């Protein structure tokens, strides 16, 4: 049996008085690589916020590594949805990665030598160590995303959360990026959030679909009924050949 990293039990969440998540049950295990898909506004970001302890569920229980999310979140490496940060912001790659140590460092102190070594190590893990003195805005979208992954890794996470990581990565670089995730997967479970089913499905091992309710069968297969229910409209079936199949075979169609 693999160890449970995250557990959501009958979780409901509200945002501005409207229910965004309804009776979510989900457990993420130690060696999972889970793709969380769903339409925009389907509650994906809300679910991430629950895991990070930024909002509280209106009902139900969220546990991260056996603790409540506010305590557990320092074990979560978070790669936020690519925000439109100021490309001119005077900050180097190294400094960006170091901010990932802030959940561990003491207030009112400078970063220690160990912090810097960890940051260098994280940059090496994403093949970006050569760029450590570069200003972040001068990198390409794909390189920036790698730096943000390094920033998440530097806190020695036991779970990696990525919110729409591909939105700013050029298509040719996406493959590289997924290979990086495959590598990181050896070290920790990964949850990848995306609105794009086809992009995710090839790489992840399990897929859950979220739109207010969660459709998840503990594997990579979703039924067309799930997708239709989640997206509330018929979904074009996509198949990537047998090894990458997302949907069940439809013998009668």
């Amino acid at each position: 049996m693999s160890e449970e990293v995250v557990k959501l039990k009958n979780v409901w969440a509200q945002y501005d008085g409207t229910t965004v998540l309804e009776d979510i049950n989900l457990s993420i295990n130690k060696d999972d690589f889970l793709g969380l898909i769903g339409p925009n506004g389907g509650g994906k970001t809300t679910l991430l916020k629950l895991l990070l302890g930024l909002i509280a569920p209106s009902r139900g229980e969220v546990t991260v590594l056996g603790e409540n999310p506010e305590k557990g979140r320092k074990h979560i490496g978070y790669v936020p949805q690519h925000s439109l940060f100021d490309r001119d912001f005077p900050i180097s790659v190294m400094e960006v990665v170091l901010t990932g140590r802030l959940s561990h460092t003491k207030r009112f102190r400078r970063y220690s030598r160990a912090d810097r070594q960890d940051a260098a190590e994280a940059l090496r893990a994403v093949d970006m160590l050569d760029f450590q003195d570069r200003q972040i805005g001068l990198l390409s979208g794909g390189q920036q995303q790698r730096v943000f992954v390094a920033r998440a890794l530097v806190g020695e996470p036991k779970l990696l959360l990525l919110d729409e990581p591909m939105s700013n990565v050029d298509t040719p670089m996406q493959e590289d990026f997924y290979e990086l995730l495959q590598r990181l997967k050896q070290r920790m479970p990964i949850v990848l959030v995306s609105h794009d089913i086809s992009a995710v499905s090839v790489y992840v091992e399990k897929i859950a679909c979220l739109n207010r309710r969660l459709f998840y069968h503990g594997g990579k297969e979703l039924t067309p009924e799930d997708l239709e229910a989640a997206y509330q409209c018929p979904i074009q079936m996509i198949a990537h050949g047998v090894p990458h199949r997302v949907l069940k075979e439809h013998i009668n169609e």
Partner: protein
Amino acid sequence: MIDALLHYQFMQNALVAGLLAAVACGIIGTYVVVKRMVFISGGISHASFGGIGLGYYLSQFISWVTPVYGALVFTLFSALGMGVFVKRTRLSEDTSIGILWAVGMAVGIIFIGLTPGYTPDLFSYLFGSILTVSKADLIMMGILDVIITLTVLLLYKEYLAISFDQEFGMALGLPTERLYLSLLCLIALTVVLLIRVVGIILIIALLTIPAASARQFTHSLKNMMLLSIAFGIVAVLVGLWLSYELDLASGATIILTSGALFLCSFGISRLRSRLSLNNASGGCS
């Protein structure tokens, strides 16, 4: 001017006041520029007029109260109020700032109206009067500088993190709202420090122009602070000298000098990037 500097206490005071102002502007102005807080800083500085009025009004009852003390307390509270208002209400940020900006100034006008007698140095708070800065003013400016510098030294990495990516800071469990409010308080202190130098109306210039100039030359926040302190010092020295020689308003001359400095640094950085582009393409071919 050297002659005047040697002979006149007020010139020496003016110089020291300018240098003290440059330090606070360099450090806090850098945050104002990179974190895009120019408008809220404008709001805080104008709202400080309410404190000036309050100080005037209270000084008739309590002898040791001065308009600047009034400004210190009032500006801190209005900065906090603005921060909470902006974060907690559904009003858009610029609307809430606009409201408090005007309300603060109106409070000042009412209090000044309630104070009996003529208020001769009112204009010095609006437009600055660096030549009338007293020893006591200098001491207060020095203390404010120390508070500002120490706070930034202690919270440098946290401020950098929330300036660059507030959302990630929240996910790390940083107290982002409290950090933001403390930064607004530092802006408030800087505003109070600058009132005597350039006046309420021109404060926003010293909070933005030196930092914006420095930004043209560096990609490090720390260097940007140091460089913008240097630009601030140059602007103060040259501005003071020009205003003395040409008999112009000192605050406005300092601002115009820093404006000219910005144009120069902007031009230089454009020129440099064009040259390096040319070199790069030359190297490739």
